[in-house]
């Protein structure tokens, strides 16, 4: 399932980037002067404590939130200047919360991911059929095809939503806290799936809560605190006890993950820090 590169776009180090972004909901400013670029074909994970602006940044990159100042660029053009459907063929988003329409089946829901590729008189091409089958196979929901989405377990449902985003066949896929509300085995399942997708050449960007999971899966880590980017880079280079203390106000020790060799954070036994740095 080769993700079609956008026509005529120059090969750049970063197809998706934001420059001097000020992000705000109504009057409440969440972040100012953010500069960020997502390395191509990376698995970028944005991480930070609650309310640090990580989901807001992701929403801005996905054009869900219009920045007060600055701009998000996709393939060199300001993202809002591109036709919306055109963007949707290059960049997909798995939102934090979506609503399952009453009585919809898994196959129907996944098929809705083909919307950006369809037109009024081209509602269901062979390519659509293939993409949906492929997406359902990749997420292992093929056997669930005729089931009603409402009746699925949380983990299955999240896989179905992921399948829908995959059916969109975008080279870049943004995921807003894809593991929330899942138990640990389903969390790993979803993240493994993301890693597989990354290996097929997609650029993945995810907001995650768990620092250890982020270290294990990310090829590029963006660490945020208080609306600013504190550190950026490969997890092994970035994650240090000082950083964890500074960002999460947590004293810890960092060891090597016995499975992957990536950093593993072990909180100190008495963990309250008296004064944040």
């Amino acid at each position, binding site marked *: 399932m080769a993700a079609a590169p956008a026509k005529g776009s120059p090969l750049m180090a970063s197809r998706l980037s934001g420059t001097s972004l000020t992000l705000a909901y109504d009057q409440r400013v969440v972040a100012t002067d953010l500069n960020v670029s997502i390395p191509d074909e990376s698995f970028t994970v944005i991480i930070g404590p609650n309310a640090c602006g990580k989901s807001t940044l992701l929403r801005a990159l996905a*054009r869900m939130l219009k920045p007060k100042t600055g701009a998000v660029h996709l393939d060199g053009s300001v993202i809002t200047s591109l036709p919306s459907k055109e963007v949707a063929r290059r960049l997909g988003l798995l939102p*934090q919360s979506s609503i399952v329409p*009453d009585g919809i089946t898994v196959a129907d829901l996944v098929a*809705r991911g083909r919307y950006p590729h369809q037109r009024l008189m*081209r509602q*269901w091409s062979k390519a659509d059929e293939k993409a949906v089958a492929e997406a359902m196979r990749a997420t292992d929901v093929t056997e669930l095809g005729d089931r009603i989405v409402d009746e699925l377990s949380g983990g299955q449902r999240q896989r179905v939503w992921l399948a829908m985003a995959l059916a969109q066949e975008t080279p870049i896929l943004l995921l807003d806290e894809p593991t929330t509300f899942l138990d640990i085995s389903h969390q790993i399942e979803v993240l493994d799936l993301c890693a597989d997708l990354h290996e097929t050449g997609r650029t993945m960007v995810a907001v995650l809560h768990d620092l250890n999971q982020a270290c294990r899966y990310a090829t590029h880590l963006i660490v945020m605190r208080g609306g600013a980017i504190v550190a950026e880079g490969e997890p092994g280079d970035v994650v240090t006890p000082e950083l964890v203390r500074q960002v999460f106000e947590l004293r810890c020790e960092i060891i090597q993950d016995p499975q992957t060799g990536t950093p593993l954070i072990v909180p100190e036994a008495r963990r309250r820090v008296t004064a944040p740095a």
Partner: protein
Amino acid sequence: MTIRVGSWSVRLAPRALITGAALLVLACAVSVAALATGEYTVPVPDIVAAVLGQGPPVAELIVGKLRAPRVVTGLLVGAAFGLSGAIFQSLTRNPLGSPDFIGFTAGASTGGIIAVVAGGSAMTIAGGALAGCVVTAVLVYALAYRGGVQGYRLVLVGIGANALLLAVNSYLLTRANINDAATAGAWLTGSLSGRGWDHALPVALALAVLLPMCAYVSRPMRMIEMGDDAAKAMGIKVEAVRAVAIAAGVLLSGVATAAAGPVIFVALAAPQLARRLTRSPGVTMGASALTGAVLLTAADLAAQRLLAPTQLPVGVLTAAIGGTYLVLLLRKERH
């Protein structure tokens, strides 16, 4: 089921097609029954002849001048209400999101009553109703707008407007002289009696223009039902689609109210019945329109014949249908 011609492809659900066909047949059957029966029975062959303009003069008079306009108005108004209900239920993601409850029908009533009190003709009343509906909708939309219109805010602002307008309506009724109050009161219950071709024509025109528009936005609207973010991620201009849909829904309920008065609950019940019949996820436009048409003509037929010779206003029957529908909704969703 998919039909492909070259690079064109259209997707059709077999069950929806069968249901649609069945509803069409049902609409025809109800129409024929309404045309044939009454104080003077017209045999079915005479109806066909009358429609073709070759029937006996009596049949032509009764069918062409008296019954056919009423039936056609009923079909069109029902379809318009059904469609409008489908739009608002999809927008509000709620089976109770209906133009009846969020002020639009009440606004149309206000316009209509003002026209009655001002001593207007049938045409003025219709115009007043349409204007009242549109003005209300614009105000509700403007008040609900805060960097976009969320479904729930539209509903709540609409409910407020509804309460205000209902009060204004009763004030107007208590101020009006007894004749105007009776005229307005009858119109307010919603009725199809005495409707002529001039009532049917505006609704037909509105449907001709708005039906394609609805078909065009129905696909993006189905995506918006999954949440604004999910829809935006698929490249849908959520606010634009929503504005077009609201405009279409308001105009439909406006012209329908103008033609038949505020017949409540057709817009509420038709989309949900259609959804159950087609077993499709979410709200379906075409089936809702057809169900609305069948529902209203059948209710009107029952209103005419049930207590004959006493003629009930069709609004009473649709209110009863609405009540039953709510109870069913209650039972169905208990588990």
